[in-house]
Each structure stands twice: as C-alpha cells, then as structure tokens.
C-alpha cells in the first residue's frame, strides 16, 4: 500500500505532461540518418534505375528508351560471357578458400609448436594491398620471366601460360584470390572450432570413433554455421572483385576473364554509355540480392538446433 502526498501528485502530473509534450518531438532525431540513407543509398539506386531506362551517352542528347537497354543485354554476347565468367570465378573463389581455410583452421586448432607465429604468417596475405599483390603476381605469372614457371621447371613441368592464355586465366586468377583470402576463412572457422563443446568428442572417443568420423559427424556439422558465414562473406567479396582482375588481366586475354564488374566499368567509363551501363548495374544488383537471399536462407537452416525450440 502506498500513500501519495500532494507534492508527489504534482511531480507525477508534471512528468506525465512533459512526456506527452516531448514524445512528438523525438522524430527529428531520425531525420539526419534518414537524409543520409536517402542521399547515399536510395537516391543513387533510384537514379540508376532511371538512367537504365535512358539512352544516355556522355556528350550526347539523352532520350527515354524504356526497357530497350535490358532487352539489349540478352543479345549482348560479351555480357552473357561476362556473366558466366563471374559465376565461375565466384564459385571457384569461394570453394577453394573454403576447403583450404577449413583445413588450415583444423591444423591451427591443434597444439602445433610456434602456432601463434605460424598463424601470424598465415594471415599476412589478407593484410596486403590488392593492387600491390596483383602487380607482384603479374610478374610471377610472366611466361618467360616469372618465378612460377621457374619453380615448375625444377620439378620437370613445362612452362604454363597462366594469365596469358584464355584457358588458364580464370584458374590463375582464382589462385591469387585463394592465396589472399584463405586466411580469412581460416580465422572464421578457427573461431568456430574454439567454441565447440568438448563433451561430444570425449563420448566419440570412448565409442571408438576414428579421427575422420569425428570430423565428419561432429566437427563439420557443428562448424556449419561458421562455414556459412565464410561462404556469404567470400561470395559477396568474390562477386565484387575488381582490383585484382583489372590490374592483372583487364579482362583478357581478349575477354576471357572479363567479369560483369569489368564489363560494366568499360561500358560506363570508357565507352561512356551510361544508360546501358546502368542497366548492367541493375541486373548485377538483382543477381547479388538473389544470391544473398539464398545464402541467408541456407545459413538459417544451418544454425545450431538447440532443441528448445529457439
């Protein structure tokens, strides 16, 4: 039971009154963030959509063409090839670091001598500047002067043409991507391994499970959510990859390694065909959204089932 004094009532009434007066004035605090979001995210996208419906070449008159730019995409062989290159490059650039990064994480999760030092060395490629990396790899790939062919010659393998031949260029670029981003996957998976409970392993050992069985039926299912995080990050990263590709091959030889990013850059900023470039950007954006949704769905499905309905 409580007894309110008259002064309490006065304070309470004043407080309620102030709340009522202040509540409507909170919304202005949202305005700055809203303006920024509209200015830097919403407006550019609406503007890109609008540009994609125009025939717009820098230095020329603009005119509305509706969906013509999108229709042109279906007959543009270079765009279709770029799409294929993007998908192949992305798939390989996700898969290779995932496998190698997981293997590295398993290795670093054991009690190796000088583990900290080795882990530090292993993550170094991730810290390097992409353009600098690309220039070094360009030199290494050189068919006559590059160190890679020299190393192959030591084991009796003939010289390869690496990024200088259409059939090997994408694989060679994936090699660079793998070298740089395997450490990221390793760090993510290592974090997952550190969080795993020890009890299931003790039980498995008592039951006589082999190392492979422990990995296959315990570790792999339990680190799946972490692997999915790595897949999402790597997919987004590989899809938007530009610097390494541009520096090493510029999409060549011919257009053998031209991805959508590189083609989009050429169309918009070297051919100055802004309308068509915008249409490519919109299609690419839709592709990324679709892939992201699929991956997010898969991630949700791979989340640990705690058994309590959560």
């Amino acid at each position: 039971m409580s007894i309110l004094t008259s002064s309490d009532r006065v304070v309470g009434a004043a407080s309620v009154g102030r709340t009522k007066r202040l509540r409507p004035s909170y919304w202005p605090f949202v305005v700055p963030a809203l303006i920024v979001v509209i200015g830097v995210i919403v407006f550019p996208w609406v503007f890109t959509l609008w540009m994609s419906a125009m025939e717009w070449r820098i230095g020329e008159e603009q005119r509305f063409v509706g969906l013509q730019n999108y229709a042109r995409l279906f007959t543009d062989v270079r765009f279709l090839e770029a799409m294929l290159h993007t998908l192949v490059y992305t798939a390989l650039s996700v898969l290779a670091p995932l496998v190698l990064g997981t293997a590295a994480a398993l290795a670093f999760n054991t009690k190796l001598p000088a583990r900290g030092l080795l882990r530090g060395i292993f993550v170094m490629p991730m810290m390097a500047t992409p353009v600098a990396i690309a220039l070094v790899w360009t030199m290494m790939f050189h068919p006559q002067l590059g160190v890679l062919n020299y190393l192959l010659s030591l084991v009796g393998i003939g010289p390869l043409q690496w990024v200088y031949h259409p059939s090997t260029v994408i694989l060679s670029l994936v090699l660079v991507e793998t070298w740089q981003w395997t450490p990221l996957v390793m760090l993510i998976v290592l974090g997952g391994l550190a969080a795993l409970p020890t009890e299931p392993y003790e039980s498995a050992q008592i039951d006589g499970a082999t190392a492979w069985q422990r990995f296959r039926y315990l570790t792999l299912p339990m680190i799946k959510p972490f692997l999915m995080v790595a897949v999402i990050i790597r997919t987004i990263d590989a899809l938007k990859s530009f610097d390494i590709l541009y520096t090493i091959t510029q999409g060549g030889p011919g257009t053998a390694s031209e991805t959508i990013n590189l083609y989009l850059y050429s169309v918009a900023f070297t051919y100055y065909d802004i309308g068509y470039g915008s249409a490519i950007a919109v299609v690419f954006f839709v592709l990324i959204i679709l892939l992201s949704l699929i991956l997010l769905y898969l991630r949700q499905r791979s989340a640990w089932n705690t058994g309590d309905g959560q």
Partner: protein
Amino acid sequence: MSNGMSLSRRRLLASGAAAGALGLSGIGLPAFAQTGGVNWRKYAGTKIEVNLIKSPRGDTLTKYQKEFEELTGITVVSEQTPEQQQRQKAVIELTSGRPSFDVVHISYHVQKRQFEKGKWLADLTPFIKDPALTDAGFLDDFSEAGVTFARNPEGGIGALPFSVDYWIVYWNKDLFAKKNLSFPKTFDEMVAAAAALTDPPSQTYGFVARGMKNANTPVWTSLLLGYDQYSVDANRNLLTDTPEAIEAAKLYQTLMTKSAPPGVTGFNWAECQSAFLQGRVGMWFDGVGFAPPLEDPEKSRVVGKVGYGLMPKGPKAHAAATTGDGIGVTAASKNKEAAYLYCQWATGKLMGARLLQAGAGVPFRTSVLSDAEVRKGVKMPAAWVDAVVESAKISRLALPVIIPVTEFRDVLGGALTNMISGSDPAAELKRATADFKPILERSEKT
C-alpha cells in the same frame, strides 16, 4: 606597352639565367627565341588550373612550371592523373560544362574527335594570330601530322601539338649478327627474319608486339598502313574487313603465332619491353617513346646492342604509324589567354628540346629534331633520333579519328587476340566489323 615589353625581356633573360643556374638547360637547349614579340606578362596575376596526363611529358611540364610562373606572373595549379583516369575525369567535367581546369592535356589518337564533337576546346586561332600573344609563323614549325591533329573540321586549331609517338622497330643487333641477318626493309623480310631468329628451346623469339586486346589494335592498323590503307575512310566508313585489312591481319597472326613468345595474347607494351630488355627477342614493334629503359644499364641487358629501325616498307606503302598528345584550352575557361600562354610555353622549342633530350617524348617541332646542338644533348643513341626524324617523313595517323576509339580498339582488338589463338582472320574481321559498325554509326548520329 614599351614598359611591358622591356619588363618582358628582362623576365625572359632572368628566367633563362635561372634555368641555366638550375642546370636545367643541359647541352644545346635553345633559348626562348620564339618569344621575341610576345608579351608574356600581359596576364600577370591570373591563376589557371592545368589538367595533365601522368607521364614523362606531364612530369617535365610540372618540373619546369615555376619557370612559366616567373616568366608570366601567372599562377599555375596543375595536377597529373594516370592516363585512363585523366581521360574519364576530363570527359565527365567537360560534359558538365564547368570543368575545374583551364588547360587540358589530351591524347589526339583517342580523344580528338570526341573533343571536337563536344566543342570542349577553345579555338586558338585568334590567339595564334594575335602578335601580342604569338610570334608569326608559330604553327609553321610543327610537322604535318601535328597540324593535322590540331586542326578541327571547321579549320580552327584545338589543342596545340605537344608530343608525337612514331612506331618503330627496336631490334637486337647481337641476335641479328649471330644469324648473319640484316635489318629488314620490307614486310616479307621482317617475317623471314623473325622466323630465322626464333628458337624456342633457347627461349629466343624473333618478334614481339602487343597482343592484349585494345592495346594490340595500333599494331594491326600500323601494318595496314603498309597496304596503303587506313582503318576508316574520310567519310568514316569502316575499312576493317577489306582484302588489305585481312592481309594485314594475316601478317599480324603469322608474326604473333610463329615468332612471338608464348603468352603474347596477354602482352601489353610493358611485357613486350620486359622480354626485349632480357635480350631474348629479335624485334619489338612499338612506339618510339618506350626507348629510354633499353639504354639504362640498371634495367636492360641490351644496352648498346639495340638498333632503332624505321618501320619496314609494306607491299603498297612505306608508313610510320603516328599517335600524339596535344595541350589545349577549354572552351569554358574564363582565362583563355593566360591558359593559351601556358600551352604555347609547353609546346615551345625549349620544352620540345627538353623532352627530346631526356627521352621523355618527341616534339612535333621539326626544327628541334633537326637542330644539331639539341641532338648533342640527347641521351639516346643517334640511331634513335634518326629513326624519329625518318619516321616523321613517312608519318601517318595510326588510329581513326572517330569518337568511339576505345570501342574500336576493344572490338577489333578482341578479334586480333582471337587470331593469335588460331581463329580465321577474315571471319574475325568480318564479325568485328559488323559488331562495331552500329557503334560507329550511333556515335555520329547526333
């Protein structure tokens, strides 16, 4: 006026002395002889912005910028941007109608027509005719290629001719001597020499040139000039699938597949230069401006062994493919006269001599190339200067004067790359021509 003139002369003398004191003049640099009647101080106090391509030429202008400021009293704010990005920046700013710069450095062989159609450059003719701004006969000293580049379809002068690049053949005298060969004088001899020099087991190859898409197109158009044909005619009709074009493409294919190093499809000039620097390539066909590293003992294994040969004669013509840079005043500039003075200074004899002597570029000015005193100070071998002078006599434009030059180079370059991988030249050129034709037509539509 007289006061202004005497001040001007004093300034000129002072700047000449300053240049000498700074050790900038080197051997045999000409004085500001062409500036006799020009009132360089007329626009003192003005400030201009200069947009340059990052290159040895841009570096040279920036290095001597203070000299211009002392000479004219004009303040210069200049920036250098890598070629591709500079082109994009210039086009976007000029399209806006309010460029941030008064002076712009352009690549004639890529941007001439685009700039003319956009009317982005001021016509410099009134300034050239003004005796207070220009000495009489200023244009007479430029080579024909330079004036062709500078003149717009209306007869006016856009960007002043700054630096020219002729395509020559660098050849390894040691490798030629070992095979008892002499430098080829015709295309047929070039193919034969390239084949004779090629020895894959020793990683020695007879010929190298750009195979990378886009970069490789001038190689083919240069060969095409030997068949007495340009890639586009005067009415901007494509001539890229004619019998001559196919023959030139076959020649390109033969040289690049039979005598070039493996992986040449991915070679731009830098990879070609690296291969030649190692002493493993007999002939390298490219612009004359790439010569300085070849004579640099720190970078080259072929110092003193390089011959600088004129492009061999084709079946129908003898031609040296030519590209070049210009420097002009933007139509939107509010300081056109001051900006013009900068362009005149940049394309003067003194600057031309500096470019030549440092190997940073070759001026369009014929008097500089033929000046014995200037030649004494040139760091490159005499054969290089001879190749430049002789190329000037047979100079022809390497690339078509059209708006979509980059797309032209991309589409035709892709076809050339495919040829190195074994595709049929006639079929590739036919397809590429069909692909590019609508692009060209659309570009000239409005």
